[in-house]
């Protein structure tokens, strides 16, 4: 078990190391002079030189890379060139919006998707099951940003229940802030819920075909208690995998949804810094997002081992 843990953490760190190298190489080596790009072609030479110095373009590549990584480890991400403040502060502020949004969406989608999927599996091949399947097909086919626009149309413009966009900030109080996040969270969550429903349904159906389910029935357990006592835990293994993967796609989904609702989170920051060509922010932001995605995968793997005793004893 400990060997498994160590191995997974080692892989996690290695993935981060390679990812950082790729991001660094893409943004700092390929396009030529980053300072030139950031300031534009007709930048005054002295400003260009100052920025070059600040970015350390004149120093060797390896040194620059390790300076960056070293900074990351202690939480120093350099300074944003457009916002004139430390990138880490900038990201932390924005994270305070994006993370609650993603978690809210994850919560809603799991709470809706998994029970609906289980419900469909328990009612396999009945109209209820087909109904869920249609919901699943729709959910997968509908782009979340379109769904967001439709939600705004109905709930903001026609009904006026929720704001159409913007975020008052946590200073404005808990409820107004949450209220501003409800529509964005739902537009992310409903689509994911459809995916969860499909996955949960097929995971349960897969387990229902296993021999040990027949054993449970032969013991005299009813259909329902077989489902609860024997099927669910086994079905959780694939469901958790997908939940993990989908959690990272929710995180990425916020990038799009923040655009629709004009919410000042990480997603907005990505596009603002991209249009400003603030590479310092872009670089660290992408690194952060990638690290989050990889981290979620790590957590999923570790959760496996808790649920599936076979992994504990195998050592790999």
């Amino acid at each position, binding site marked *: 078990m400990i060997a498994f843990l160590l191995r997974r953490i080692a892989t996690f760190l290695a993935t981060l190391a390679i990812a950082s190298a790729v991001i660094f190489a893409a943004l700092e080596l390929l396009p030529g002079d980053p300072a030139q790009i950031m300031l534009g072609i007709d930048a005054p030479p002295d400003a260009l030189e100052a920025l070059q110095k600040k970015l350390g373009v004149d120093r060797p590549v390896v040194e620059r890379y390790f300076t960056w990584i070293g900074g990351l480890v202690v939480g120093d991400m350099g300074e944003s060139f457009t916002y004139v403040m430390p990138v880490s502060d900038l990201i932390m502020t924005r994270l305070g919006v994006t993370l609650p949004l993603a978690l809210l969406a994850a919560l809603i989608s799991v709470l809706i998707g998994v029970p609906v999927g289980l419900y469909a599996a328990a009612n396999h091949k009945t109209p209820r099951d087909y109904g869920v399947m249609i919901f699943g097909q729709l959910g997968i086919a509908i782009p979340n940003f379109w769904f967001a626009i439709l939600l705004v149309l109905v709930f903001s413009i026609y009904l006026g229940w929720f704001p159409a966009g913007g975020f008052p900030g946590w200073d404005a109080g808990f409820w107004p802030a949450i209220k501003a996040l409800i529509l964005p969270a739902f537009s992310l969550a409903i689509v994911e819920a459809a995916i969860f429903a499909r996955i949960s349904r097929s995971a349960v159906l897969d387990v229902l075909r296993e021999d040990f389910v027949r054993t449970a029935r032969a013991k005299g*357990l009813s259909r329902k208690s077989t489902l609860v006592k024997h099927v669910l835990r086994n079905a959780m293994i694939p469901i958790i995998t997908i939940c993990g993967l989908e959690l990272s796609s929710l995180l990425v989904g916020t990038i799009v949804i923040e655009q629709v609702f004009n919410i000042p989170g990480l997603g907005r920051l990505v596009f603002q810094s991209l249009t400003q060509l603030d590479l310092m922010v872009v670089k660290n932001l992408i690194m952060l997002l990638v690290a989050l995605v990889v981290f979620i995968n790590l957590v999923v793997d570790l959760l496996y081992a808790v649920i599936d005793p076979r992994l504990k*004893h195998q050592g790999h």
Partner: protein
Amino acid sequence: MLQVKNLNITIAGATRDISIVKDVSFELDAGRSLGVVGESGSGKSMTALALMGLLPGAIRASGSINLAGQELLALSEQEMCSVRGNKVAMIFQEPMTSLNPVQTIGRQVAEPLVLHKAMTRTAAREETIRLLDRVGIPDAARRLDVYPHQLSGGQRQRVMIAIALSCSPNVLVADEPTTALDVTVQRQILDLLRELVSETRMALIIISHDLGVIGEMVDEMLVMYGGSVVERGHADQVFAKPAHPYTSRLIEAIPRFGMPRSERLKTIPGTMPEMGSEMKACIFAGRCDLVYADCLEAPPPFVSVDDAHVAACIRAGRVMETTQ
């Protein structure tokens, strides 16, 4: 104690119902054992599942299964649940997949005790240790908390038997209980089953394709072919003097130790007819070398050849004579 009469099993098809088991009847007393032998597609496993009320989806059973005065086919699903694992128990072919991989074996063995006998967790735990010990799991008290993947195939089948045994059932149905096991392990499991039958007076039904297993284990036997019983009788009689050409050929098709090299195995030409094909003739007529015109006219009735020994063949007497 167990009486099965005219058990028919059909699968609902798109245009018509397809019959997969036809008119199976037998009786079985406490402490006795019955073997059901047949090749794949003979309907023997479906018969076993019908006894448990566990036929999958669109498959239906009709006729009568009477267990100690209780008509099982008339029971509601809820009532059947209190019979399963309690009065009738079953073990399966694949011990590797028949146990829940994410539950300890202690918990899995205790489950029927809690369910049917309303035992407390602690009482069930004591009983579980006794059961595991009885089926020959060494150091049972310490094995309660292991998971199935930590046990060998033979040990898992022992655990399955402990589960089946837990509520002292009247009938134990064993569907190919040793097919997935090595021969030395098979020996141990068969010996264990035999001991348990004489100890507990439960009735045992063994389903197998292996004539050796059946021949060694049971008092009575049914030979099934293409969904029908073709021969029924005391195992000793059936093996000594088979009365149906299929049984006779099947016995002769098995290699025996010490056969002289000059001797060839007898074979049955052709293959078993497809499931559900409607037959006006004898179901074996297509592969039989004794076939006469009347064999093709109508399915043969059961011919009684000896005390409680019957065969579905109009030339049963002739077949018995020709067997060495």
